């Protein structure tokens, strides 16, 4: 933290306090009324037993014990958690890695880079429903374009979304396609804030693309990297929509695409085809998701902020 540059107290401290408070008030009021209060009410349910849709009694940490230590629930929990972690790592490497390369390529401002910026962001404006449907169609074992292309080189019908080993990867791929534009533009914005003189100076010193990218650009875009990393982390732990559209509420096949978002939603609200709802266990799962995400985010922010260099 660079406190020295902050605005220090002046005369009329109450006027200053009032000014700050009035800046914060609208956002805080909305958050307290429509996020904090409903979430706390929902979290409370994690400590209650349910028989049907109404709580029947306080049971302490029993719901947490079940989802963490009692089969089959615990197996489902860890299976889903594992997929969230895989999703985070895969998205960091493939989505954000590709985005970094794309941003660097676009930074060169070669002919056509403007139109490319428009194109790469186009899928971001689409809904997950559309993206899911489209990629289901492309990955269809019989009619899908992916398999039709592979058939040309003699590879048989692969059930991308139906096979336990390829399903999660396929869903992740669709997600990368959907969101790639966002980190690309955030990183590009960060790179363009690196001053031209710095880059020129490095070039004159004989730095090649690789050195320029790793030694100059990468450290200098730290604030953008922080934003992208944190949003990716939160996104992969709250991941819901694309797997929901492509693999259904049960994370088919056999839980191969199950993630905590689906699992908690299914537990709390059930589905018409698997049966019943349990707000107690569902809320316990959500509380755990909250603790994981909020905890890691707080720690990561502290660490990432430290490596940010004030420009």
């Amino acid at each position, binding site marked *: 933290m660079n406190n020295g540059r902050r605005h220090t107290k002046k005369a009329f401290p109450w006027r200053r306090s009032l000014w700050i408070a009035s800046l914060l008030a609208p956002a805080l009021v909305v958050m307290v009324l429509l996020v904090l209060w*409903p979430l706390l009410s929902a979290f409370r349910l994690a400590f209650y037993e349910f028989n049907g849709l109404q709580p029947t009694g306080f049971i302490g940490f029993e719901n947490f014990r079940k989802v963490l230590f009692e089969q089959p629930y615990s197996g489902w929990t860890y299976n889903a958690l594992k997929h969230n972690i895989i999703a985070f790592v895969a998205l960091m490497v493939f989505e954000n890695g590709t985005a970094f390369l794309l941003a660097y390529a676009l930074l060169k401002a070669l002919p056509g880079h403007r139109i490319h910026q428009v194109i790469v962001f186009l899928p971001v404006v689409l809904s997950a429903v559309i993206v899911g449907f489209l990629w289901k169609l492309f990955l269809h074992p019989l009619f899908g374009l992916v398999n039709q292309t592979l058939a040309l080189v003699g590879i048989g019908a692969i059930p991308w979304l139906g096979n336990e080993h390829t399903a999660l990867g396929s869903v992740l791929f669709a997600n990368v396609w959907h969101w790639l534009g966002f980190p690309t533009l955030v990183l590009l914005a960060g790179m363009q804030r690196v001053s031209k003189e710095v880059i020129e100076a490095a070039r004159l010193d004989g730095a090649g693309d690789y050195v320029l990218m790793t030694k100059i650009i990468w450290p200098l875009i730290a604030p953008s990297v922080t934003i992208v990393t944190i949003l990716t982390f939160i996104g992969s732990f709250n991941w819901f929509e694309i797997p929901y559209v492509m693999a259904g509420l049960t994370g088919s096949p056999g839980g191969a695409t199950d993630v905590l978002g689906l699992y908690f939603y299914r537990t709390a609200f059930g589905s018409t085809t698997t049966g019943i709802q349990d707000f107690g266990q569902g809320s316990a799962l*959500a509380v755990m998701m909250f603790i994981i995400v909020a905890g890691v985010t707080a720690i990561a922010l502290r660490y990432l902020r430290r490596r940010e260099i004030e420009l």
Partner: protein
Amino acid sequence: MSATAHRGQSGELLRNGAIQLMLGLNAIIMIYPLFVMVMSSFKTNAEIFSSPFALPAHFSLANAERVWSETNFVRYLANSVGITVAAVALILLFSTMAAYAIARYQFRLSALVLMFFLSGMTVPLKLAIIPLFIQLDSLGLVDSYAGLVLVYVAMGIPSAVFIMTGFLRTLPRELEESARMDGASEFRIMRSIMLPLARPAFVIVAIQNAVPIWNDFFFPLVLITSDNLKTLPQGLTVFVGEFTTDWGVLFTGLTLAALPITLLYTVLSKQFISGITQGAIK
């Protein structure tokens, strides 16, 4: 001397060629599925299943006509536009104010307030749909525009505050201080000096929020029941549901739901991109 320069140039050319090739390939991967979606909306069900990636046999507008005549399309569209614009405007206003306070002033609870906002981002509000519904009901906001807009604002504020705070922190302190020396009020400093510099962040926040709000159908499904208040994705989801097995109608519905925001984005893309990347001036 001139030979090495020449070699360097041709190497550069080669590298740029490779980059162009990669970008071109990426552009195809990004665009082609959209092309398929639009083409599918002209097709019959049988065509989609027998030749999903061929051009349609006829450019039949039958599917589009059905969506047009059997739903309250214009009304849904107007509702979606109104709700999205109102929600994004309020998100920008409220979260910029809050982020400005956190980023530009030093006060005791600053870190705590930021953490409070961030924690709102870490858990899906879907979880709390029942208490949220009851809360809105007690405020008389169920089945109203205002209720839906406020829910979206509440959902958008955390990440908006996060992005805005990060951005506002990086603005140089000198401008602010010199204005203060000249006796400008805090409000004037914020509005006339600092915020104009934050345009890239506004653009990112606006688009990052507008897209999910526009596309959302979960909250309208739960919160809105009157037909004349329904949003476009909600109205079309229900309409398409009446033809569960008709993929042609489905794709038409999806395409039409995506069309307004896609067009808007394409038209405004120049401003959008330059808005984001204008940080280059420095």
